[in-house]
């Protein structure tokens, strides 16, 4: 059975995304088009569902296209990748091909270029899988850090594990500091290394960061490996290690067709939100809480009855807030979802909430 072609479009310009979504929707293979406006969001989407092709812009704030493609090639070696850019620079083109992209496309400017662009994308979608090595699959955190150190990288690695967030600072291939929860330095590094699953992103280098770690990266990784071996021999699991990257309460929602992300903001603002499919759950949880409170207050004042739901259509995606006895359930819906199906999708998804 033929798999449905799915394309992920990554560009920081949401107007362009709408335009490309419209153009690619007319391809003969009728692919499903999803969009992302940041590299982090694109990686989250790639982790949560299979795609046939990633079409990526190069010039983006925070994580640029080449950084995204480097991560994508490592993490999703089977995924076809194409760059679409406005400014063609031969050096950039060479770097992109060196990363292992399938195609380097110029953003089309006229009817003829649009036709050629669409033909190229269609041919990529039709391309059969070829045997052979295309990349490195499923790297552990140790492998990732080793790669960064060996390539003499100066960068900041941000690692997210459930509700825990850690950062590791690298300077010319040496680990200079780490932070995780309340810990800093080597302790924080060890804590991060004890996480077994999660997401990561490479942030721009922080050249003025304080050096708190003086041990070589080999020594640090060796210590961490030893600690992990000891922990596994006792069958222990780190306290902040979740069983899965999707919280159990949100797992059925994550499998609902049309749902992009979900955040559960508890009434207690100090409790971290449960989340799936988003990189910034805390601001989203705060927003959901404040929005629900604002309209609950109006409802009480005007005796309008209980607040049942908040449904919103957005430029990038649609969202819904469903009040629950112990908090607010914020659900992100795909922008491609027709208005008529939005309410039903929100209802289906919220019914699957398992407190």
């Amino acid at each position, binding site marked *: 059975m033929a798999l449905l072609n799915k394309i992920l479009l990554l560009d920081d310009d*949401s107007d362009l995304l709408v335009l490309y979504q419209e153009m690619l929707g007319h391809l003969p293979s009728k692919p499903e088009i999803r969009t992302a*406006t940041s590299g982090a969001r694109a990686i989250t989407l790639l982790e949560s569902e299979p795609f046939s092709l990633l079409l990526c812009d190069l010039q983006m704030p925070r994580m640029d296209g080449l950084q995204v493609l480097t991560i994508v090639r490592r993490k999703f070696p089977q995924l076809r990748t194409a760059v679409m850019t406005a400014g063609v620079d031969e050096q950039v083109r060479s770097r992109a091909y060196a990363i292992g992209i399938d195609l380097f496309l110029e953003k089309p400017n006229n009817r003829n270029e649009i036709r050629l662009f669409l033909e190229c994308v269609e041919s990529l979608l039709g391309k059969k899988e070829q045997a052979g090595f295309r990349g490195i699959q499923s790297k552990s955190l140790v492998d990732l850090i080793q790669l960064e150190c060996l390539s003499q990288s100066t960068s900041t690695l941000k690692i997210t594990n459930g509700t825990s967030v850690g950062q590791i600072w690298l300077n010319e291939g040496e680990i200079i500091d780490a932070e995780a929860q309340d810990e800093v330095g080597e302790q924080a590094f060890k804590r991060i290394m004890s996480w077994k699953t999660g997401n990561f992103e490479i942030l721009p280098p922080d050249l003025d960061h304080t050096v708190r770690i003086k041990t070589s990266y080999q020594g640090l990784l060796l210590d961490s490996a030893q600690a992990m071996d000891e922990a596994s021999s006792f069958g222990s699991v780190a306290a902040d290690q979740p069983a899965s990257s999707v919280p159990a309460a949100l797992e059925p929602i994550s499998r609902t067709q049309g749902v992009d992300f979900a955040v559960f903001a508890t009434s207690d603002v100090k409790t971290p939100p449960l989340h799936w499919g988003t990189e*910034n759950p805390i*601001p*989203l949880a*705060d*927003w959901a809480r*404040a*929005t629900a409170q*604002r*309209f609950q*207050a*109006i*409802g009480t*004042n*005007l*005796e*309008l*009855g*209980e*607040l*049942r*739901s*908040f*449904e*919103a*259509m*957005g*430029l*990038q*995606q649609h*969202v819904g807030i469903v009040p629950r006895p112990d908090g607010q359930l914020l659900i992100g819906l795909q922008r491609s979802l027709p208005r008529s199906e939005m*309410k039903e999708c929100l209802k289906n998804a919220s019914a699957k909430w398992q407190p």
Partner: protein
Amino acid sequence: MATITPKRKPTVNNLRVLPSGSFSVDTNGSLVSTTIGQAFPRQHLQNIATAVLQTFRSAEEVALPLTEFSVVYGAFKITARELKGGAIVFLSTAEKVK
């Protein structure tokens, strides 16, 4: 001898009549036009307008730019559409809420 005072049934005059209609608001939160009768206090419309604008603006701050939203209550629905920094707001009562 004690007298018995008959208990009175409360009158229904206090029941609030929910409005139906629409109004528009500019970027500063001032009411521009409305089809909602004078019986509904303007302060309530102002409160709804403020909440609507706050919602559009706060959504943008968390990278969720919204074009339109509906708030569904047991007996009422507020629908708001973003309008160049301001908004047009539709109010409808229970029988019209799907």
